[in-house]
């Protein structure tokens, strides 16, 4: 199938992009790499009147390192591609976590064009960045007509394909704190075949220096379940007590005994074991 007709604009600045989106009155969509939007438009499941291509906006490219209030952070531009991250062509604050996640996204040709910002804006609960950024404790920077704001990645998904992003807002980038040398992480994704969207995602990030011990149950029907303090869960899982996960799995909306419950529990166990291995 071929996409329905649409107009196309390639603004040079975020302000211009936001103005174009606002003028589209809900029928304009921002375009990153288009690797998720393209298939949906080809199937005419999405039929925007216009696309606002963000790839020419310089401020959405590259990374910026800042220290504010004693915390060192890195802002990763929204138009950074998955392949940029996979190959380390960015300033990595995550001690290898983000490159590892990036390498598992879809296929290389998709990673070459797909962007972090685009994936976040698409807000597929089974995609990687919405989950990885949530467990990493990242902030997502957004610009709209009223200016800029920050959304905690853990709060990004309002529902499946529904980000905390207005129709006239764009993602500028993702800000992560610099993880310490003592940081450990794990990311376990279960899918039926390489490159397919996940059936289950589980992850842990531990950084004593940042007082961080988060867990995540992802690839759910809606937003991921972020476990802000995962110390107890992690210890129990590592001690070989899978039932310790049941409360969190229930909170994630997974009916006990269901296939989904089983695979998410297994993913959590494995993510916990991986973290142990990383130690």
């Amino acid at each position: 199938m071929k996409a329905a007709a649409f107009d196309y604009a390639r603004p040079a600045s975020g302000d211009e992009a936001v103005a174009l989106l606002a003028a589209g009155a809900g029928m304009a969509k921002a375009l990153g790499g288009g690797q998720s939007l393209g298939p949906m438009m080809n199937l005419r499941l999405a039929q925007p009147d216009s696309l606002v291509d963000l790839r020419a906006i310089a401020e959405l490219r590259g990374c910026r390192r800042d220290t504010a209030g004693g915390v060192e952070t890195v802002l990763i531009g929204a138009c950074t591609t998955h392949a940029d991250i996979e190959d380390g062509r960015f300033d990595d604050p995550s001690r290898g976590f983000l490159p590892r996640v990036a390498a598992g996204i879809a296929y290389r040709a998709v990673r070459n064009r797909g962007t972090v910002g685009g994936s976040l804006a698409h807000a597929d609960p089974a995609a990687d960045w919405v989950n990885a950024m949530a467990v990493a404790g990242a902030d997502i920077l957004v610009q709209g007509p009223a200016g800029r704001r920050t959304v905690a990645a853990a709060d990004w998904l309002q529902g499946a394909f529904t980000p905390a992003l207005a129709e006239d807002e764009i993602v500028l980038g993702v800000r992560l704190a610099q993880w310490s040398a003592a940081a450990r992480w794990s990311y376990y994704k279960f899918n039926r075949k390489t490159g397919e969207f996940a059936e289950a995602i589980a992850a842990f990030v531990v950084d004593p220096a940042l007082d961080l011990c988060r867990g995540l149950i992802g690839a759910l029907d809606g937003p991921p379940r972020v476990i802000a303090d995962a110390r107890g869960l992690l210890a129990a899982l590592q001690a070989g007590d899978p039932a310790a996960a049941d409360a969190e799995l229930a909170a994630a909306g997974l009916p006990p005994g269901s296939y989904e419950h089983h695979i998410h529990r297994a993913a959590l166990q494995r993510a916990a074991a991986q973290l142990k291995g990383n130690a």
Partner: protein
Amino acid sequence: MNDKPTSPLALTVNGREVSAVVEPRTHLADFLREQQLLTGTNIGCEQGVCGACTVLVDGVPTRSCITWAVSCQGAEVRTIESFDEDETMAELRAAFTAEHALQCGYCTPGMLATARDIVTRLPQADEARIRLELSGNLCRCTGYVGLVRAIGRVLEARRQRNLVEA
């Protein structure tokens, strides 16, 4: 009754500067095939899954079916037709035919684009890595056996040459 929006587009296709007017909804594969008459880029799904339409955009493998032509403004696009004289591709072609890495040939242009990326980007790739990197290109004929062997053969030859040169 063509009242559909159009956009100007200037890019390089196989080393040639091209100026065109396209409907924004035209994806790169259709632009190459229907307007540039470069039919070597095959369309397999238009869903970004099968990899048959893989071409190089600014030197890297890209799904041309889910990339709008208009978003390739200023880009350098290379299709299978431009690799006749390419040494790496010649080596891959020889290995593909020796290992029977193609049958119906429909996935082949996309496979070669990906294969060339593997051998140039990942000189140390082993069989498992070749399979992983190839996983975004579907083939319904060969069971991937000949493809994996062919790419492995080229990688090995390149490693041997580098050893000799070193």
